[in-house]
């Protein structure tokens, strides 16, 4: 009923769509584990995507474009952590404002600087051994290095958070910053590091969007994937391994529209319904993960000097 080619394309698209959400989720896990909720993740991805496209077009180098995307995320992290951590603003409102700013800023700069130009993109790389396997090989042949980088990064983030002393400190900052301070550490510094690094990773989600498609930038091209990542993080209970699965599920949900368009029986269903699928799925995920426990201090700015707050 469905041809093999359609199925291959479906999985190829799914994997491609999974990568941005994976990077965004890994970054957000770091940020939230330290006690900060970065609602501005959408804007960080958008700025990452734009910077990647701009540098790619100007330099012609994929490597520089990728580095620039990551670097722009780190800079967003510096700005956001100054607001979230140092000044202690309301994180939800600040994040939303940052998103609005990012949409406006990237759209304006696109019109001024790059318009509809396209830059270099990452080509698919063949994996020795797997490329000969029927079906799987065909799907993977289309995937670029960012998929493998994301998959490799997942256990790295997990080990950093759960198996190192640095990770213990980050998690203490997210659970009970007062205890971290009483242990002789600087809560702010711990959170700066986590927010900056996390924003860098999240921006790579935007980079992946650009380098896996045309190499150009389209206004608002992140299209809510940052918010989907916020949902994936809750669903994954702040575990990078589960976030990988979650990102895969959302990749599949996003490419449903393509699969549906190829199946005659579903021809009557409006396309918009399929487009909405990932967002509806996000809402369901958040509703059904009510019992998952946020790190206790998420969203609460820390003020030193008061002895033992929670």
């Amino acid at each position, binding site marked *: 009923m469905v041809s093999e080619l359609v199925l291959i394309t479906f999985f190829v698209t799914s994997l491609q769509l999974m990568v941005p959400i994976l990077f965004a989720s890994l970054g957000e896990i770091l940020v939230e584990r330290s006690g900060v909720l970065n609602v501005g993740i959408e804007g960080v991805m958008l700025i990452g995507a734009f910077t990647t496209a701009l540098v790619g077009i100007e330099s012609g180098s994929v490597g520089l474009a990728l580095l620039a995307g990551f670097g722009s995320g780190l800079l967003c992290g510096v700005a956001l952590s100054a607001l979230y951590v140092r000044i202690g603003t309301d994180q939800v409102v600040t994040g939303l404002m940052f998103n609005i700013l990012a949409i406006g800023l990237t759209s304006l700069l696109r019109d001024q600087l790059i318009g509809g130009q396209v830059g270099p993109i990452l080509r698919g790389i063949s994996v020795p051994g797997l490329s000969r396997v029927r079906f799987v090989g065909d799907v993977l042949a289309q995937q670029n290095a960012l998929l493998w980088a994301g998959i490799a990064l997942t256990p790295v983030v997990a080990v950093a958070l759960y198996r190192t002393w640095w990770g213990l400190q980050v998690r203490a900052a997210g659970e009970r910053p007062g205890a971290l301070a*009483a242990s002789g550490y600087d809560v702010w510094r711990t959170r700066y590091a986590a927010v900056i690094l996390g924003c860098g990773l999240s921006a790579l989600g935007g980079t992946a969007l650009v380098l896996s498609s045309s190499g150009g930038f389209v206004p608002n091209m992140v299209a809510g994937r940052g918010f989907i990542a916020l949902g994936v993080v809750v669903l994954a209970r702040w575990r990078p391994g589960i976030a990988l699965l979650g990102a895969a599920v959302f990749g599949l949900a996003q490419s449903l529209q393509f699969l549906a368009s190829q199946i005659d029986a579903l021809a009557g269903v409006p396309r918009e319904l399929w487009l909405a699928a990932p967002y509806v799925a996000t809402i369901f995920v958040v509703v059904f993960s009510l019992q998952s426990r946020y790190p206790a201090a998420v969203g609460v700015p820390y003020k030193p000097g008061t002895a033992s707050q929670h």
Partner: protein
Amino acid sequence: MEQPNPKPALALRGIWKRFGAVTANASIDLEVHSGEVHIVLGENGAGKSTLMNIAFGHMQPDAGEIEIEGRPTRLTSPADAIARGIGMVHQHFALVPAFTVAENVLLGSRSARAGMLDRKGIVDEVSEVSARFGVPVDPSAVVRDLPVDERQRVEILKALHRDARILILDEPTALLGVRQIAVLLEIIDRLRDDGRAIVLVTHKLGEVMEIADRVSVIRRGRKQVELARGEFDQQVLAKAMTGQLIVDDISRSAGRDEPEVVLECRDLTVPEPSSGPPVRGLNLRVRAGEVLGIAGVEGNGQRALIDGLTGSARCEGAIRLNGEDIANALPRRLRRCGVSIIPEDRQGRGLVPDMTLAENLALVDLLAPPDDAPRFVSWRRVRAEAKELLEAFDVRPPDPDLPASALSGGNQQKVVLARELSRRPRLVVADNPSWGLDVGAIGYVHRRLVAARNDGAAIVLVSHDLDELMKLSDRIIVVYRGEISLESSRADVSLDDIGLAMAGARR
């Protein structure tokens, strides 16, 4: 005891600290030597915790100096204090509830550059430290699941693991039961013999008598007096602490011959209380004008009993109030039946801290208004009535427009009493009503409860404080693992009997 080192391990000199218009510390001096326990005694809000937070670098003083082993030092953060050998056991423990004991103990001991965290290795390390100092903990337990006394030992161990020579304990006994306090004092005694300098903050006189080598009394931010062992007794200390002699003037009227039974529980089972274990098949009766004291080690069903009586948890069996079944009744109905509740957690369940005193006092009426109440609230009337009540219950200041959070703990509790006792309740359920209060406020709470009893209310009093139970109760029951292990009139029971029953021995 050895001759103390001439240079104090820790010396605070002329410490000043102001918060807005409030002076928390006014030129306070404090010295503690190695091998010495120096107790800082004072009522709540006297400025003890501020002083300790300054000594641990949480706060900086506005003026004054800190010397460690004779060297002037500035402590700009806890990290500075830790580096100079100070350890602190916080009143509200500075532990990460989601982490294991081992992770908490070692959190401060390793820098982020220490690399990988060896889960088994740290458990072994903490076991070893626990054994070496004789401070028993389970290194692989998660702190969230531990009882308060064990959490406290984790904090002590955390300081010892970093070899703190100076140990600050902020109100360490506030949350503990009698037996747990004895264990803690034993540990402190050993640490003193080990040559550490210990500063212990408390508002309880008993501890001072037991372990202090030296005591400084602080009142309203000023040091009143400093006395060495042998120079103080309870009377002198209480007077210095409160500025007045406390007279124990509780007068209980003789009970009537056969007063009616107000509360009767038959076969009461509360399977899922809000915390702690369930109670099963409890039978009890409280008559008008009687105080039933309930003793027991924390976590033996007291919580379940209170949850059942106050409609906070589903229960089976019968609860009758003057013959009417009130099992599983909603709070609104309980209020209408004349049940008053004095919860343990006065800032969480007793009061709404951000609302004004007038609003807090009116809350119960809004929930269960008298039948003739007008449809709309007249705030003018509410405030006028509140003003009267606040004055009648000696709340300071008696300003109905202040938020509850602006009052001291003792005055907050007086507001709760004003609301709960001014309506001539038939039954009062009081859960550790004097918890965390200072001597003066405790005396007030006791007098008010006895006055309610003399007026004919039936009172169920749950308390960790055996002295309080012995003082106020007409009858005492002891709960052990959700069942009654002892029931007796107060006159016929000794503290030893109660202690044995609390440990599970049946007579």
